[in-house]
């Protein structure tokens, strides 16, 4: 498909966007894309193989890039801009950025799995290189000089020997388009020539974020817009028995919308919608469907009826039989939340058989189909426009709230903005799965691991929306799509189930929990933090049996020089002193604390970024309070695009991982989730953060870039657990390490 078939004209888009009461900063820039002048038509994404789909150069020399990958707060839109600016030889300030619009941007796949720089950046680099090549060929003809005699400088191409013979990108394009297929053969710059890539370029959107002018999805307002709120069942699996609409008759302009078990309210003013949602009297019916929290892991075992062999090498059973001593350990991880600071929000305008949805979704293109099915519209009549939300850290409520807004808007025939309450967010976001691990292993006479078995039980880590509208809460409650049943989904729990250690006799088995009444899905790193917790704690336990220090013991089982390099760098950075693996039980800074340090190493997803961490903790035996004082991280994500951006991601991963390890567990009873605010789901506060996070970035200019959005989470939980062991001599194996648990473990 050529760009000419590209759907809604960008002119039409301007008309749409122009009605936003709050101006989008990109609208004036987009006006420059008008020169494209596509005919109006179906709302389908531009084709990835056409250069015009990716970037538009206007007469005024401005450049607009259309990226499918979106800014989720990680700074990736700045990194991607650096890649384009570098390859195109233009100043970054001239590049306007349009992202995640199902009609205007190429579908680059969801913005997930730390893939935006690695895969999305590679696509943008190819497109920019193709554009540069095309412009050089045009300039060659115009200036009468061969391409290899031309130089490009900030959007101007000149003859090298006589730079007065020059022509600008805008003059060459002259309001037209490239009409060129991306060959993939356009030369890209050698890394040695990079000027922008590799620099800590400040993030483009931060001045607006610091001054309140950045437009989040929460800030989108349309004329004639109503405010909506959802009224969710109070118990998991409940059905609606009755609804008393008169209960909100005293609230100005408030109106109830009901479809099946889906209930919402709308009002002209936001506070009226909030009050109506609180006041609405509804009767619900439900039997308790959740297992007792104390029996959760037994429930997992009972529900897991199939197994998956992730890895099997050598003869594990024979090795265990022959072992002088078999070490066994059980580790547990609870349900955790994304816990975004801003509850999920979306704005939808569904009228005259067309739907436009402003959403913080990770997949604008992917969200069109289930929304269309929910509304009973052809998919080409649905357009989803990504608008940044609060940080999501994976599959949170962004898609669901978009469906809520769309359904409400369709019923009332006006634009509707829905923002979830805090309790909606905590109680209805897709939770990060709990996991259970059973490990067994043995150390051979040579001081290396002779046998290693891993068994893990987990519900799904992937229940993102498919084409089926029942994969969205609104569709499910409204009874649209597949019949209700337990939420199912794909895998993701196996991420880092197998280590990268050289293990001659190894068996890694996963036991998927077929279904669980609470919906679970992708939380930053999917199974990687949990699996790494079990694996990296267990290797520490085996090191004790081997009588070898934890850094040295890991080193013995690594062959990849990049793995060894991060481990050594973290140890060096932390001034790691070679020691035996037995606990040091050092006194902490004060008389009543014990100090310890732990190490862990993970290569994210076994093929992505390498990370090692050394964590220093202080433990108060009387209270059980664990404090992480210092974290040293060594991080290798290949070619670094923006060092400060990578550091910011590492720091964020570390702090969030400390929070998950020390504090976070979703509480629930037999009927519902009971962690519904920040007092029942506490996260790390300023008073609890480490004194320092000391980072060593290992740049590998000759290696492809790898993602940095998730990797540094994984080694933190085990490094903390190993540090607690070093401080106290006690293994803690149940996350989170709350004061009560640690105190109890120390008394055992």
């Amino acid at each position, binding site marked *: 498909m050529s760009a000419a078939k590209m759907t809604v004209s960008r002119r039409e888009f301007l008309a749409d966007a122009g009605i936003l009461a709050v101006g989008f900063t990109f609208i004036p820039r987009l006006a420059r894309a008008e020169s494209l002048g596509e005919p109006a038509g179906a709302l389908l994404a531009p084709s990835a193989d056409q250069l015009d789909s990716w970037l538009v150069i206007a007469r005024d020399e401005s450049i607009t890039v259309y990226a499918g990958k979106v800014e989720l707060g990680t700074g990736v839109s700045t990194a991607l801009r650096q890649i384009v600016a570098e390859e195109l030889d233009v100043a970054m300030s001239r590049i306007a950025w349009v992202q995640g619009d199902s009609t205007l941007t190429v579908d680059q796949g969801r913005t997930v799995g730390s893939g935006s720089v690695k895969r999305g950046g590679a696509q943008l680099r190819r497109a920019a290189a193709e554009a540069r090549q095309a412009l050089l060929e045009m300039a060659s003809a115009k200036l009468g000089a061969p391409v290899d005699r031309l130089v490009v400088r900030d959007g101007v191409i000149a003859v090298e020997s006589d730079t007065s013979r020059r022509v600008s990108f805008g003059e060459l394009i002259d309001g037209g388009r490239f009409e060129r297929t991306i060959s993939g053969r356009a030369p890209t710059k050698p890394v040695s020539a990079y000027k922008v890539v590799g620099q800590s370029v400040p993030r483009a959107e931060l001045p607006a*974020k610091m001054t*309140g002018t950045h*437009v*989040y999805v929460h800030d989108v307002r349309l004329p004639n817009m109503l*405010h909506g709120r959802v009224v969710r069942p109070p118990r998991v699996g409940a059905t609606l028995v009755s609804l008393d609409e008169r209960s909100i008759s005293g609230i100005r302009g408030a109106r109830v919308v009901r479809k099946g078990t889906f209930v919402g309210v709308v009002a002209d*003013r936001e*506070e009226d919608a909030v009050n109506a949602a609180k006041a609405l009297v509804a009767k619900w019916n439900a039997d308790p469907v959740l297992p007792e929290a104390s029996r959760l892991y037994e429930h997992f075992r009972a529900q897991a009826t199939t197994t998956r062999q992730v890895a099997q090498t050598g003869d594990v059973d024979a090795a265990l039989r022959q072992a002088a001593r078999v070490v066994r350990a059980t580790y547990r991880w609870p349900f955790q939340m994304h816990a975004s600071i801003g509850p999920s929000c979306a704005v939808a305008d569904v009228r005259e058989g067309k739907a436009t949805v402003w959403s913080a979704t990770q997949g604008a293109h992917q969200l069109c189909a289930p929304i269309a099915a929910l509304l009973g519209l052809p998919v080409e009549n649905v357009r989803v426009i990504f608008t940044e939300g609060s940080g999501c850290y994976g599959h949170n409520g962004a898609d669901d709230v978009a469906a809520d807004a769309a359904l409400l808007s369709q019923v009332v025939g006006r634009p509707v903005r829905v923002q979830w309450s805090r309790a909606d967010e905590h109680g209805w976001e897709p939770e990060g799965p709990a996991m259970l691990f059973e490990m067994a292993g043995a150390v051979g006479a040579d001081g290396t691991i002779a046998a290693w078995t891993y068994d893990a039980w987990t519900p799904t880590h992937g229940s993102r929306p498919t084409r089926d509208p029942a994969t969205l809460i609104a569709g499910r409650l409204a009874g649209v799509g597949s019949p209700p049943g337990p939420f199912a989904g794909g895998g993701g729990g196996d991420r880092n189930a197998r280590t990268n250690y050289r293990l001659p006799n190894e068996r890694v088995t996963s036991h998927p929990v077929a279904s669980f009444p609470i919906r679970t899905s992708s939380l930053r790193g999917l199974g990687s933090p949990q699996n790494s917790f079990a694996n990296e704690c267990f290797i520490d336990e085996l090191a004790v049996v081997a009588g070898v220090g934890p850094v040295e013991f890991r080193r013995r089982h690594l062959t990849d020089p990049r793995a060894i390099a991060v481990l050594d760098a973290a140890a060096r950075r932390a001034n790691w002193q070679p020691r035996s693996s037995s606990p040091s039980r050092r006194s902490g800074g004060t008389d009543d604390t014990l100090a310890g340090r732990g190490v862990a190493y993970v290569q994210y997803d076994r093929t992505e970024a390498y990370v090692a961490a050394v964590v220093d903790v202080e433990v108060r035996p009387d209270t059980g309070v664990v404090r992480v004082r210092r974290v040293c991280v060594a991080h290798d994500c290949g070619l670094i695009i923006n060092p400060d951006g990578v550091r*910011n991601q590492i*720091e964020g991963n570390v702090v969030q991982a400390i929070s998950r390890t020390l504090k976070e567990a979703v509480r629930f009873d037999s009927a519902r989730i009971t962690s519904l605010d920040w007092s029942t789901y506490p996260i790390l506060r300023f008073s609890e953060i*480490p004194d320092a996070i000391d980072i060593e970035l290992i740049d590998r200019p000759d290696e492809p870039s790898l993602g940095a959005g998730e990797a540094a989470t994984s080694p933190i939980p085990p490094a903390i657990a190993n540090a607690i062991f070093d401080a106290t001599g006690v293994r803690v194996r149940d996350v989170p390490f709350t004061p009560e648990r640690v105190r109890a473990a120390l008394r055992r």
Partner: protein
Amino acid sequence: MAIRIRVNGSEHDVTAAADTPLLSVLRNDLSLNGPKFGCGLGQCGSCTVHVDGVPRRSCVTALSDVVGKEVVTLEGLGTPERPHPLQQAFIDEQAAQCGYCINGMIMRAAAILARTPRPTREEITTAMSGNLCRCGTHLRILRAIERAAQRTAPAPTGREG
């Protein structure tokens, strides 16, 4: 009946119930998007504004409570072109990821620095502990506050003493 309030130095007549959360009025009636809805419970701090110079959670502050008082929002501190020293320090330290909590961080920090121009790190962490950040940008936020304090506070020359 309209209620008159003073925000960022200007008078505004707002037609809303007296018990309407100030946050709702600031955002929806005055289009001031700096303050953010985070919890509606006064637990997270992302809606923080100043009322007569004191940091307040606007999600649990009634419109009628600020009549006759001076409300200042993030927009009242500075603009992208002319940022407040704290806003500039946050930019310099790249002290945000998603930025949703940042309104509360800057407003809270501005109140701290107004009272204590050269706070210790412990004073800052204690005062900031009621504000939640999920991206884990805490250390950058602390550095930004310290940077702003160094930039704006009078040098301790001891001349007054």
